[in-house]
């Protein structure tokens, strides 16, 4: 092959590589732009403060679903964050051999596991025994989805803390558990907080695991033992409905959801880049 053809091939292939990136970013802007343009027209005050109206009746909002998503996410975080962090602590701070290997392996596998199956599982262990869909079941499903994300990001952040910092605390006569809680975790806090924000953003957008756990509720509900509405399930029902008014509300709500998730991701990224500021 002559040098000229080699150079031409070089040009072509590198151009293709640039194009693939443009394709990827094009879809990002197309999808987000579509939600934005279709949603922004139907965003209004009542969306945030009113309950849904039956089909055919115009107006109403998704206020209960917004609150429902907040409740589900908060309860899920209360369960998922501490357990996920403890798994990471077990992996990095204690030499547990096989157990550590298995929990690391399972976190890796669960990180991209179908969330639908987790919903089905929670249905069998919570919904069937309780004989009702419930906010609790939804929260537990979301907390299981959070677990591996939290565990992985915490593990990576804890590993960044030098051993010498732990030893400095030990040498002062600080017990290991206090060293972990008061020295290691604070030193790793920016990475851990970033991970939590990404995990929260991820579960806020989950639909499949909620369909058979928290189900749906078109009224206000603040009880953990009753079905609860959520933004995602509401959007799913509205978007697949034949009513124009509902579809429009689906886009408006999707815009709200996408905005929250994007903002969380961007804040998380900015926060992470401030790592090791002190």
């Amino acid at each position: 092959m002559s040098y000229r053809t080699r150079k031409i091939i070089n040009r072509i292939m590198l151009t293709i590589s640039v194009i693939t990136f443009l394709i990827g970013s094009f879809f990002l802007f197309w999808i987000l732009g579509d939600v934005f343009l279709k949603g922004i027209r139907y965003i209004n005050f009542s969306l945030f403060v009113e309950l849904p109206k039956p089909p055919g009746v115009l107006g109403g909002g998704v206020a209960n679903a917004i609150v429902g998503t907040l409740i589900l996410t908060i309860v899920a975080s209360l369960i998922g964050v501490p357990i996920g962090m403890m798994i990471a602590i077990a992996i990095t701070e204690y030499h547990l051999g096989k157990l550590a290997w298995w929990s690391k392996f399972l976190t890796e596998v669960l990180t991209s596991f179908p969330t639908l199956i987790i919903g089905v599982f929670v249905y069998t262990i919570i919904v069937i025994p309780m004989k009702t869909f419930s906010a609790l079941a939804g929260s537990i499903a979301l907390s299981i989805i959070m677990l591996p994300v939290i565990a992985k990001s915490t593990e990576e952040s804890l590993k960044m803390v030098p051993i010498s910092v732990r030893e400095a605390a030990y040498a002062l006569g600080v017990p290991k558990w206090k060293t972990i809680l008061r020295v290691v975790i604070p030193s790793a806090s920016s990475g851990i907080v970033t991970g939590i924000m990404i995990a929260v953003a991820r579960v806020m957008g989950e639909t499949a695991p909620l369909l058979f756990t928290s189900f749906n509720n078109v009224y206000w509900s603040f009880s953990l033992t009753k079905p609860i509405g959520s933004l995602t399930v509401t959007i799913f029902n509205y978007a697949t409905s034949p009513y124009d008014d509902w579809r429009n509300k689906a886009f408006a709500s999707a815009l709200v959801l996408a905005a929250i998730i994007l903002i969380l991701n961007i804040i998380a990224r900015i926060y992470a880049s401030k790592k090791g500021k002190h």
Partner: protein
Amino acid sequence: MSKNIGDKIFKGLAIFASLLLILLVISLFLSLVIYSIPSIKKFGFKFLIDKIWDPVADKYGALPAIYGTLVTSFLALLIAFPISIGIAIFISELAPIFLKRLFSFIIELLGAIPSLIYGMWGLFVLAPLVQLKIGPFIQKILGFLPFFQGYPMGVGYLTAGIILSIMIIPTISSLSREILMAVPIDQREAGYALGMTKWEVISKVVLGNARSGIFAAGILGLGRALGEAVAVTMVIGNFHDISISLFSPGVTITSVIINQFAEATGELKLSALMELALILFLTTFLIMGFARYYILKRIVKE
């Protein structure tokens, strides 16, 4: 003074959390198995090769769902894999250093979009496009192939495959990027020193070094596509049959579960759905386990 009781409690909690994780996966598996038993007993192996899904006659077969899942996922991989590798190469080899993080972030954001929003875009933007533009266009050029027969309805295997491909691009490309960036600089320099062009260095030296890792990244992307639920459900068409034409509507394992689970009143129907979930669990667990184990082992070696 006795030895620190706090240390023992804290270590106990850490071990407990790890055991809880393991217990979770085991009970996940067991509960799917237990609920699948009626269906396994009734249909046996035939469940996997039967096309009929008839709640009225209480007869269930998983073949269309398995077929749909495989077709859409492999189609997604076919589209997403080359694009993802291209993106990985662009970010790791071509992009200026100060823009690398921004570019990676853009692609990662694609992965942060909820699958529900992909589904809406698929239903309201992509499906009409496939029906009116992409479908007829493909038919004009490749209409003689059995894969492109019949009238494009918009929803169907092709639309689901395209949506899935966009959704797994971030998974494959960010992993591949990490793997490419881990190839040592001196390997590249050795290539340049031999008079190779940039593309030759990338294709022969860098990709050669990263081959197995990129393969694992592809497998992981496939695993994600297999388990994707809401977006696929919205665009697959929900038609219980098998068709070789990609324009046809169909079902996937996840779409069947989503559409039928809430109204699964009979024990046998619920059990059949559980068996579908079990099949998905086993497939994705094996695939993810394989890919993750593969990657984990590589990292440990380094």
